[in-house]
């Protein structure tokens, strides 16, 4: 490039959204990785309490994957509520109850919207300024995470242009220097912390997700701090026997929490079904200002997920949920 003699020129910037967005700083992310990520094979096994205490800070941008109903990191989400973290900014993609739950619990006050249920209490929180919302779509959010997971500042995308979400976002419309046509750019997303539930992980954080998903690998690679909860801790020997099954490599991971039934009351595909009674209970709670009752029982009233399972679920129910999940094909290496 030292010999390039191209005169300076420019690319038209046609429109810009005016929404606040989590700062874009690929070099800062790189420096964080260099200074904080452990590249040796060091056990990262710890309790949910320790993981959340050490790796979730007030004001953090939080990505969770998938959601409270579907392989969500519910154990970690409960722990975040239990520890009364403050002012989290949520990646609210592909979500039913999570945003409403976390806002009602008082731990989150901003959300990027892909999709989440806007129940009356949540609408109320928005009107009262207890929740500020920035507008994207589900896929725009996961592409933002992909850009973050690639160490890039932005990514072009062929959707989102023309919407009013665009206006309330960090997107920009430019004239593509390759085709001459307008194209939308969206800002990369590098969350401060990601919480992800997986089927299997070794103690170093090499993790396997089976079945479909939303953006577990992208969230893990894109986030400064990564907490994995794993249905099952497996030996590293097993990881080495089938490296093609590793979804997330150890060096991206900061904490590994052993978490059987860690997504309860949601389902863990191939392992156990969701518990419909409790799923309906959380829907009712977020729809009717009854979140405190829900949290009193399921979060504040127990000191840990183990206690939750012991006191409110029990072996018989867990066996039933395991048996209700009849499909196993494809969910094992």
């Amino acid at each position, binding site marked *: 490039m030292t010999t390039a003699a191209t005169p300076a020129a420019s690319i038209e910037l046609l429109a810009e959204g005016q929404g606040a967005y989590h700062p874009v700083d690929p070099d800062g992310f790189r420096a964080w990785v260099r200074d904080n990520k452990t590249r040796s094979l060091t056990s990262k096994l710890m309790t949910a309490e320790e993981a959340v205490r050490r790796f979730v800070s007030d004001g953090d941008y939080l990505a969770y994957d998938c959601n409270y109903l579907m392989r969500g990191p519910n154990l970690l989400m409960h722990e975040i509520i239990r520890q009364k973290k403050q002012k989290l900014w949520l990646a609210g993609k592909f979500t039913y109850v999570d945003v409403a739950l976390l806002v009602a619990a008082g731990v989150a006050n901003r959300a990027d919207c892909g999709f989440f249920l806007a129940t009356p209490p949540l609408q109320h929180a928005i009107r009262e300024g207890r929740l500020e919302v920035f507008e994207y779509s589900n896929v725009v959010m996961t592409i933002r995470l992909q850009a973050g997971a690639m160490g890039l500042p932005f990514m072009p995308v062929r959707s989102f242009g*023309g919407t009013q979400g665009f206006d309330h976002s960090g997107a920009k419309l430019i004239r593509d220097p390759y085709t001459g046509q307008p194209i939308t750019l969206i800002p990369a997303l590098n969350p401060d912390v990601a919480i992800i539930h997986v089927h299997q992980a070794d103690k170093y954080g090499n993790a396997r997700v089976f079945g479909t998903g939303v953006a577990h690998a992208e969230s893990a690679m894109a986030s400064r701090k990564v907490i994995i909860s794993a249905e099952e801790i497996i030996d590293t020997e097993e990881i080495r026997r089938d490296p093609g099954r590793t979804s997330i490599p150890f060096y991206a991971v900061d904490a590994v929490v052993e978490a059987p039934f860690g997504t309860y009351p949601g389902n863990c595909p191939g392992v156990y079904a969701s518990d419909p009674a409790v799923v309906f209970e959380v829907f009712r709670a977020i729809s009717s200002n009854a979140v405190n009752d829900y949290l009193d029982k399921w979060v504040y009233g127990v000191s840990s997920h183990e206690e939750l399972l012991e006191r409110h679920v029990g072996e018989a129910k867990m066996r039933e949920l395991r048996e209700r999940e009849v499909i196993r094909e494809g969910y094992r290496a």
Partner: protein
Amino acid sequence: MTRADAFNDREVMMCTVARMVEDGRTYWAAGGGTPLYSILLGKRLYAPEAQYVTEDGVIAPEPMLPYEPMMTMVASRAAYRALSWGTMNTAGIHAQLGFMDYGVLNTLQVDQHGNINSTCLGEYGSDTARRFGGPGGADTIAACCWRTILMTDQDRRKFVRQVDFISSPGFLDGTVGARERAGLPRDTGPWRVVTPWAMYDYEERRLRLIARVPWVTVQEILDECEWKPLLAPEIAVLEPPTEEELLILRSELDVRGQTTDAAGGWVTWDGEKYVRQVV
């Protein structure tokens, strides 16, 4: 195929969309409600070789029906016997690449140019605005699938001149090239709107009524449009649901009636004609 005697609004809409499903085409089913059930019904009866994806990257599954409550994505029954499992970016990117022929979705509000609102009713950001869930996958579907089929209620609050918020793009301001100027892929855009009463297409990027069910008149439909659509020279009459369709819908697909029991009207055959009553 026997015309059915009794069915509700949602069932009418799903049966109508099911008949539009084509063999050898790809569908992106938004979420897990009426769009997904319409495609499943269409595959079951009319177009077994139609293929579909869902937002979590399931490609061409043979799901184990019925689903667990709410569990229409990232669940083993919904993903069962797929040809490939990916993630949300798989679905989004394959649509972006042009691999998805049709997107089927539903919405809160649609306007004369097919723009879709699923974000808020009322002025965005105002104290009186009522917040909804946001576009979810609909923005990508509406932007990137070749053709979109929008399912919604026939309700004058839903058919408006201009949506309160464009969550997912239709023809935007309706001018030629508006979508391309916004960076969207060429030759895409809204294709059909289906309600329990009617079907619409677009004429020069404006909503046009093209068909009605037997039990409502054109005038009744227009009464339920705040903004009046164009009218096709001839308004076709849609066939009512058949017993076969309803049996499958009720006994194999939506057995718990989560989707079909949703609020709306109920239509019955009184021996001479269909009569609709709001329940």
